[in-house]
Each structure stands twice: as C-alpha cells, then as structure tokens.
C-alpha cells in the first residue's frame, strides 16, 4: 500500500513538473521531450491502477506515434524565437482568470456531488469474473464479443481515413522519370561493354 502510494506521489509530481516545463521551456524540442516524460509517468499511474493494457497503449500511441510526430513538426518548423518575458506577463492575467474559473468549478462540483461508491463499482466493473482475468484478456473478451460491431466499424473508419488521405494527396505527375526495372532487363540482349573516352562519350 505504502509503496504504491509513494509511487503515486512520485509519478504525479513528475507529471505536474514536466507539464509545467512543457509550457515554460524556451526550446520547443525540450517541450516535446518533457511531454513524453509526462506520458511515461501517466503510464506509470495506470500501472498502479492495475491497468497495464492502457499503460502500454498510452506509451505506444502517445509516445510512439503522437509525440514523435510532434517532434518532427517542431524540428521542421523554424522556432528560433522563444517566448519573451513581456509576452508571458501579457497573457498572465487571462490565464490566471481561466485557471481560477476551472479550479472554482472543480471545487463546486466536489462539494455538491455525493459520490455513491457502490454504483461507481458497478459502472467501472461491469465484468463479473474480472478478478480471474488479466487486463488485456478482460478488455479483449468484451471488445470481441459485445463491442465487436463498434470495434470493426472503427476499423472501417480508419480504412476510410487512409483511403481519403491517399485520394486527396496522391498525384500522378507528368514527366517524372522513374526507374523501370523491367525495361532495363529487357535491354539485356543489347548490353555491351564499351570503353568510353573521357569528355567524348558514346552513342547508345
């Protein structure tokens, strides 16, 4: 119990600090790296909750795909100028205001809600024999039975996204020279070795 509590505090502290660094660091590449650190620690939080599958998915999807994509974008764009101090001061009041609104909303919600813990257990634990299964098995067993339609249709949506992006971006350009291996091989009967004199060339 104490070990998990301790790791919870460590993970969440690192998340808070690194997300602070994401918005305050001057170098955008550093920001993305801190974002990746935050993702890793969030995955740690999932592991504490015994949600290993979600933890791994978080790392694969967010770190492996999204954050690396960010990194590429940031590296390709030219961000020589960092944030200036005066800019921060300029946006500080409105940022603080929005932050205060969010915090007060959270407090109001917390005060007014009576959490019915029993119900939450039912909502978050719909499988009766959850205890015997590992995380991945449990998700798989409902994803491929009760939710098969949604799962498959999501797959079709991704297929349509792929078709769409190819349709909209792929162009057949005229006059582009491509290597045609077939054509090259067809020439084989005519291949001969010639001694080419420098600066004179030969007819093909």
């Amino acid at each position, binding site marked *: 119990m104490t070990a998990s509590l301790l790791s919870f505090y460590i993970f969440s502290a690192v998340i808070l600090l690194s997300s602070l660094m994401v918005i305050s660091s001057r170098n955008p590449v550093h920001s993305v790296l801190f974002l990746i650190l935050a993702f890793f620690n969030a995955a740690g939080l999932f592991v504490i909750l015994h949600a290993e599958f979600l933890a791994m998915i978080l790392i694969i999807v967010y770190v492996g795909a999204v954050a690396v994509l960010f990194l590429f974008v940031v590296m390709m764009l030219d961000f020589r100028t960092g944030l200036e101090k005066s800019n921060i001061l300029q946006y500080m009041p409105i940022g603080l205001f929005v932050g205060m609104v969010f915090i007060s909303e959270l407090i109001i919600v917390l005060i007014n809600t009576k959490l019915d813990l029993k*119900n939450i257990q039912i909502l978050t634990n719909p499988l009766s024999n959850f205890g015997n299964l590992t995380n991945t098995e449990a998700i798989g067993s409902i994803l491929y039975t*009760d939710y098969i*339609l949604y799962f498959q*249709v999501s797959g*079709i949506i991704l*297929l*349509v996204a792929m*078709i*769409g992006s190819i349709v*909209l971006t792929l162009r057949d350009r005229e006059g582009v020279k491509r290597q045609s291996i077939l054509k090259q091989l067809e020439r084989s009967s005519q291949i001969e070795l010639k001694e080419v004199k420098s600066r004179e060339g030969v007819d093909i």
Partner: protein
Amino acid sequence: MSMFITLLPEIIIFLGGCFLLILGLFIKKIKIINNASIILIIAVLILILFQPIQSILENSFIVDEFSQVFKIMILLGSLSCLIMFNSSNEDLHINIYEFPILILFASIGMMIMVSSNDLLSMFVGLELQSLSLYVLASLNRNSLLSSEAGIKYFILGALSSGLLLFGISYIYGFTGNTNFNLIAVNYNSQSLGLLIGIVFVCAGLAFKVSAVPFHMWTPDVYQGAPTPVTGFFALAPKIAAMGLLVRFLFNSFGEIYFDWQQIIIFISIASMVFAAFAAIAQSNIKRLMAYSSIGHVGYALIGVACVSTEGLRSLVIYLLIYLVMNIAVFSFILSMKRKDEYFENISDLSGLYKNHPFASVMITLTMFSLAGIPPLAGFFGKFYIFMAAIESNMFILSIIGVLASVVGAFYYLRIVKIIYFDEPQEKFDGFSIKSLNFLFYPSSVLITVFCFYPSPVINIADFTIRSLL
C-alpha cells in the same frame, strides 16, 4: 449466426468495397468499378427486403421495418449518385476510382446509423458516414471551390461531432447507459444534465441534417462539391440523419417529449423561414438547391415535432417524395452541359423551352412539386405534414409553414419563368445522355402521377413506423 445474418447487408457492401478497392489498382477503368458498385448496391437492396426482423448485441443494432425502409431510401440515393457519376466522371475530370468505393463506405455508415439503437453505434456510424463525405466533398482537386467545401465541411463536421459527443457523455453520465431502450428506463426527468445532453445531441444531429441555426456549411459545400456528390449530400445523409434523430428521440426520450419538442419546433420554424428568404437572392442553382434542402428539412422536422403516429407517417411520406424530387433535380442539373463544360447558373437555363421542350415540361413539374403546388407529389408531402401538425394542435407551426412555403414558391417559379420566357441560348448536350434521362424522366413522372395512385407510398409509410410506436 443471427448476428451475421443481421449484419449481412453491411458486411456484403464492406467486402465488396474492399474487393473493388484492390481491383481498381489493376483495372484502371473507373466505369467498371462504378458499374460493379451499382450492381453491388442493387443486390444489397434486394437482400434488405428479405431480411428477418431482429435485433442483436443486446438491442444495440436493430433491423426492423423502420430501418429497412430507411436503408432502401439511402441505397436508392447512393445508387442514383453512382449513376450520375457514371455519366459525368470524364467531363468533371475526376479520374479517381475510389469515388464509388467511398460512396459504398458512406452507405455502410448511414445504414448503421438508421439501424442503431445505441449511442455508441450511432456515433461510429455517423463518423464513418461523415469521414467518407468529407473526402467526397473535396474530391475535385483542380477546383478551389471544392477544396474550400471539403475544408469547411470537415471543420464544421468535426465541431458537430464534438457537440454530439459532449451530449452523449452527459446522457451516459446521467443515465448510466448507452442503449436507447435502457436510457428510456433509467432517466430522471428532473435532471438538468440529461436535458443538456439532449440539447447537444440534437444540435449535433441538426448539423448533419443542416437545419438552421446549424446550416452555414450547406450552401458552400453544395456549391463547391462535384455535382454528383452534391446530389448525394442532398439525398442520402439527410435521410439517414433524420432516421437516426427519430429513433434517438422516440426510443430513448419518447416519454419526456415535452423536453425536446420545443427544440425541434424552433429549428423547424427557423429552417423553413430562413431557407425561404435566403434562397431568393441565389444565382447558382446548386446553392439554390442547398437552401431548398434546408427548407425541406424544416418541413420534415414538423413531422418529428408532432410526436404522433400521423407525424411520423407524414415524415416518411415527405422523405420518400423529397428523395424522388431531388433525384430529378440533380440529374437535371448534371444535364446542363455543353461539350465538357458544366453550367450551374440559373441564368444559363434561359429559354430552355425552345430547345428542349419535353425536359422543360418535366423540370417545370418538378419545380412546381418542390414548391408544393397541387396536384403534384410535393403538395401531398406538405399536406400530410400540415395535417399531422393540426391534429397535434400546433396551429402556429403549420401557419408559419404554409406562409414560408408561399415565399419559397417564388424562387422555384422564378426558374420556371426563366426557362419559358427568357431569351433562348444554345442547346445543352446533356439532355441526350441516357443514364441521366434514366434518372430524370422516371422520377419526374413519378412525381406527376403520385396523385392518381398515392396508396403505395402511404402504405410504405404505415409499414415503416409500425415498429416505432
């Protein structure tokens, strides 16, 4: 096994679409892929007629009379779009064989939408549909307008999906269920959170049917998208979203209809009035049809707002007639071409009567029908809608509806005036294209003869709503 049979139409379209996608890599002919898709859709249309009525996945996906009729309407819309594309793909310079495949995938999404009885299947169906439509809207890469249409549609569509998801999260949070029937059991009519959820889901769906005040994308997208795609937009997605709206409201919140009735009444009045006045100043016929479709959605929503058997019946009748009228109009618009140039301005129609008398008569009848002039089909659509509204004691709504349709008649009649009384221009080539005539003449004849033989349509409508109430 029952699940497989229930999902068979969707599965067939999906597998067929994937097969054609691969086939298209080797056969570079768009016509072949397009015709194969047409055959696929016709096969599925026949299959749907013979499907057993049942629900799977704990009632989250339903095949019943309602979904069957709506699926048939949707597939007819897709079919006519593909036929239109067949005649125009070369002239529009859209050499993209994925076009019919995207239409197929959009059809799958819409079929899931009208069958869904669960917030999750509703959302995935809606997303599949909209994602395909975003791509279709910006398919003509050589045209700036088309790209603009795609971007606008994408951004506003994403916004509407966000609103929808926000509403769904509220409904799920306050009832603990995503299934429509279980939501109906578990709601607490006092809860404000649930009302917020209903409002946001209605707003998200109003985006998809392009009802005022969520209509602003419609004119630009209709104008920018390639004409067959515009026809598709006007036909299938609206009908699908309307079916989804009906099932969502009636299955999950049928008992607390007073909570959402006023929302529907408001967007219905706003759509009718706005469309009637905004369409007057249009000069582009596709833009005009965008406003016209906004107005028609307003009338159709009256049928939802009635919350009665008559209301739903009139809604189905209205949608059926709307489908046929729009097939006629869009195949007519595609016929307006000389050589390989398409004309979209209303002024290009001037004096059409001199060159193409028969087509002019038929389009005049269609325009009269859109305006709701008796004894054409459009009149009966509006007639049933207003009858249902009066039976539900919504006199103000029906009076506003009638007045808006009087204003709306102006811009349809203006087209008729331009066709008959303005200076004639050169002939159009498009009126001799067989596949367009195959769509245009039967549908405009259907509109005309509806008054002699209305009972099939009314029977279909009765059949459709049997499972809802």
